[in-house]
């Protein structure tokens, strides 16, 4: 059974925020009481906090830096974050900043993770230059585990080339991630795919398919003519 607390980590730019938002929406649709916490202290742009309004409209509690501090050069984590560990009525999504630097933000909650089980996901996109091979991915998993003092429980194949993604990218990524999975004994839990490509994925692919709707898009694609 899934743990109440889901932690999304990965290499910077691997797609944690898109997955966190989509995952929170998915939990909410299942009728759960959901909280999403933006722990990204690395990225200045394209963050969960930018989608706070939409998430709230979907009945999701958003814990993120207040608007007046959202553009500070040093990331801020609201003190309210701790409440998701205490209030066990919530299903929780933690969107963590990239790399080991981002994962440091988790360290302060270590005593809560010792008291309660958690699912930590490691998001992988093999079209990203530093995670395009087995060694690179494993190096990042180790760095993030060390910085967060937590263990990765599941892998997510989020291989994509933004608006140029085709099925071959995902299948190629799956092959590399499968080998990582064999070496580390960490199972592939999800394979993400844009909603319109879901039907084209091979049936045999390991992991549950997580269809994605994108939110982190630049203004000219938001208002495409």
């Amino acid at each position: 059974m899934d743990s109440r607390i889901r932690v999304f980590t990965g290499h910077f730019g691997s797609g944690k925020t898109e997955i966190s938002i989509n995952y929170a929406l998915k939990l909410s649709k299942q009728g759960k009481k959901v909280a999403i916490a933006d722990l990204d202290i690395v990225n200045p742009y394209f963050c969960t906090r930018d989608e706070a309004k939409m998430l709230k409209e979907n009945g999701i509690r958003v814990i993120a830096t207040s608007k007046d501090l959202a553009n500070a050069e040093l990331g801020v984590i609201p003190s309210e974050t701790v409440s998701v560990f205490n209030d066990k009525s919530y299903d929780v999504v933690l969107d963590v900043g990239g790399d080991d630097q981002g994962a440091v933000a988790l360290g302060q909650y270590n005593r809560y993770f010792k008291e309660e089980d958690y699912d930590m996901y490691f998001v992988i996109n093999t079209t990203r230059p530093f995670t395009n091979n087995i060694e690179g991915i494993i190096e990042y998993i180790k760095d993030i585990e060390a910085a967060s003092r937590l263990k990765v429980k599941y892998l997510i194949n989020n291989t994509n080339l933004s608006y140029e993604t085709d099925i071959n990218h995902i299948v190629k990524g799956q092959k590399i991630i499968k080998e990582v999975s064999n070496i580390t004994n960490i199972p592939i839990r999800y394979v993400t795919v844009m909603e319109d490509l879901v039907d084209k994925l091979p049936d045999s692919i390991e992991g549950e398919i997580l269809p994605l709707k994108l939110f982190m898009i630049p203004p000219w694609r938001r208002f495409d003519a």
Partner: protein
Amino acid sequence: MADKVLMKGNEAIGEAAIQAGCQCFFGYPITPQTEVAAYMSRRMPKVGRVFLQAESEVAAINMVYGAAGSGVRVMTSSSSPGISLKQEGISYIAGAELPCVIINIVRGGPGLGGIQPAQSDYFQATKGGGHGDYRLVVYAPSSVQEMVDLVQEAFDVADIYRNPVMVMGDGMLGQMMEPVEFKERSSRQIPSKDGWATTGLRGRKEHHIINSLFLKPEELEMHNEKLRKKYAEIEEKEVKYEMYNCDGDLDLVIVSYGTISRICKNVVKMLAKEGLKIGLIRPITLWPFPKKAFEEVVDRTKYGFLSVELSCGQMVEDVKLAVNGRKPVSFFGRSGGMVPSPTEIANKVKKIVGGAR
């Protein structure tokens, strides 16, 4: 053909520089360009080159000055307030006629401003941010792929003319992710640096001396004249621009560069559906400014030109100079990190041309 990769603009700058043969990177972190330095810190040691996080922007640009003097390809990167700090060094580098590449991922100003995207460093980049009679070649890419291509071009142009070259993008371009390809490219003919680089005497009697000090007025004037001729040659040969939907008779031409030009392209498409014929001139070099693009359309553009910028009106002055009073020139801009929607821009266009057809 190499496989495409997904990269942030800032990371792509780093990789493009490495592939262009950049031997040294000196930088200092500042949002929203820190990923350039982060990428270089990871990659440069792996390829046996130099990454150094300086103690300040001033130190970084002076390290660039030194490395450039020895003839190696060198780059630094910062964002607006940091680029202000580098200006003295940039002036010295231009004065000493040394090649280097400077990246500015622009945030809102003045002062510390804010971290969201802006284009308010246009004046600083194109009109001489530092002192003295000098020019920077300034490239303004609008996509991550173009960023890669222009960073590589920037190294060539810097070497060919022995002059600092700036690649300027707004914060959006630095932070967004797009697919990119690092193409096999044929480098332009690069002149030898043996005649001036400070690499030791190597049997010669005369030292190569890197200098921007000319105490005799006659000599300094001669030096300035030499630079002036060089800049005239750059204006002649290195202009880059894109013209979009500029054929035939036009109601109005939007002038816009960088990421905001991508919003303006949507405006052009939107207004075409309403029967308006709107063109777009996208300067790719901000200096030299693409005056000839205006010559091509000025006589067949009914209501003139609209400069759309993420600033309070800077490029619009160059548009006015290029149009030279022949047609009206208007301005629309947002600043402080605010990005206009296509509808906002379209409404401004309609106001000028008097509504839809």
